């Protein structure tokens, strides 16, 4: 994961856009938490800088 | 003193050497002052060679100045910055300038100094440098060629009696003797009992040993050396003694301790002399000698 973050940082993509979460099969809340957190981070950081603007 | 260092060594007297650190730059006023202060009080003045891998005036030029002033220089030579050609050339060059005593060292690694990007050489090591000195004396060089006029040196080396582990260090000590070392200056010693053990071992060889004395200036310095300088161990009672000094009197206490140690080494005939390193406080060497009863 650190490696992925480094590779992204190198090309100027904020490494906070990628994360690893550990959970068990019954951790439904953990999953929804992870899903919400990553969506929130994406909102904060804005669109993927690779994509054409205005979409 | 008119006597050469070799004569002093062989006279059987308790030999005293001190150290001069060449400055970084061409302003040598302070260094000249230290040379004048010390040259007649000691049997030899070591001149460091780009000490701690920090670029400075060369040890040959400063040794030459000492010689001209009537002192007795001990040329330190490290294997860090020169290959065998340059080392041999510098050795015979030193000789024609009247520099007859050389201390053969490996040298600190480049990256501890101020030119970290430079190429470390280490073509020879301290043992091989000693051998080279002896070879040049035989009228030959490392290329197997005849010299037009042989060299003549009193050659020394260093040993660290507090090294950990000690066995590999002693193995190298014996190699240095085999290679032709006539005298050794030791890394700083503070634990006299341990040093006596080392001397008992060293006495089986026909070499002169000068104990290294580094002037303590504070208890903090002692603790720092224990933590950071390889091969130096200051026992707790000495640290406590330094700490007990009144405010502003720590240096006096350090001088007192150094003087006392030198006196013990001499009176108990433990070793053949001392090498005083008053790092940055060269002006205090006469005080140390006075405290030791040697002035």
């Amino acid at each position, binding site marked *: 994961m650190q490696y992925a973050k480094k590779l992204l940082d190198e090309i100027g993509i904020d490494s906070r856009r990628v*994360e690893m979460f550990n959970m068990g099969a019954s951790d439904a809340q953990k999953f*929804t938490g992870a*899903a919400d957190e990553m969506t929130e981070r994406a909102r904060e*950081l804005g669109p993927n800088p690779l994509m054409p603007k205005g979409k | 003193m008119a006597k050469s260092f070799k004569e002093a060594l062989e006279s059987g007297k308790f030999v005293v050497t001190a150290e001069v650190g060449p400055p970084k730059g061409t302003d040598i006023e302070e260094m000249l002052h230290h040379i004048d202060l010390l040259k007649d009080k000691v049997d030899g003045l070591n001149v460091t060679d780009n000490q701690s891998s920090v670029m400075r005036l060369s040890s040959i030029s400063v040794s030459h100045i000492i010689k001209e002033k009537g002192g007795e220089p001990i040329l330190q030579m490290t294997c860090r910055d020169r290959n065998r050609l340059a080392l041999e050339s510098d050795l015979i060059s030193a000789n024609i300038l009247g520099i007859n005593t050389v201390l053969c060292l490996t040298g600190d690694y480049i990256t501890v100094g101020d030119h970290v990007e430079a190429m470390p050489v280490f073509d020879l090591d301290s043992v091989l440098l000693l051998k080279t000195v002896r070879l040049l004396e035989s009228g030959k060089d490392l290329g197997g060629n005849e010299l037009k006029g042989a060299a003549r040196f009193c050659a020394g080396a260093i040993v660290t009696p507090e090294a950990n582990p000690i066995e590999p260090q002693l193995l190298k000590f014996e190699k240095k003797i085999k290679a032709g070392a006539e005298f050794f200056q030791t890394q700083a010693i503070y634990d006299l009992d341990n040093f006596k053990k080392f001397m008992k071992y060293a006495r089986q060889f026909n070499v002169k040993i000068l104990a290294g004395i580094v002037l303590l200036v504070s208890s903090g310095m002692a603790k720092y050396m224990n933590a950071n300088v390889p091969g130096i161990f200051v026992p707790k009672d000495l640290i406590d003694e330094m700490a007990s000094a009144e405010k502003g009197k720590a240096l006096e206490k350090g001088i007192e301790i150094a003087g006392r140690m030198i006196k013990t080494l001499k009176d108990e005939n433990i070793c053949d002399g001392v090498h005083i390193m008053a790092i940055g406080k060269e002006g205090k060497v006469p005080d140390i000698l006075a405290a030791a009863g040697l002035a």
Partner: protein
Amino acid sequence: MNEFEPKVVAFCCQYCAYSAADLAGSMRLQYSPNVRIVKLMCTGKVDVIHLLKAFEGGADAVFVAG
């Protein structure tokens, strides 16, 4: 910028995180509708290159859950 809806890719192990997501569904737990799940036998299989490819494909955030 108001209409920006992030695309989030989740690489999920079918035994743990995918089950957890499934359970979240059964429990009627609400979570971000922006998440697209990629089910894997095991997240141990996820390689750096998969993460990079997800970003190349336009993902705004990527997470691995296992």
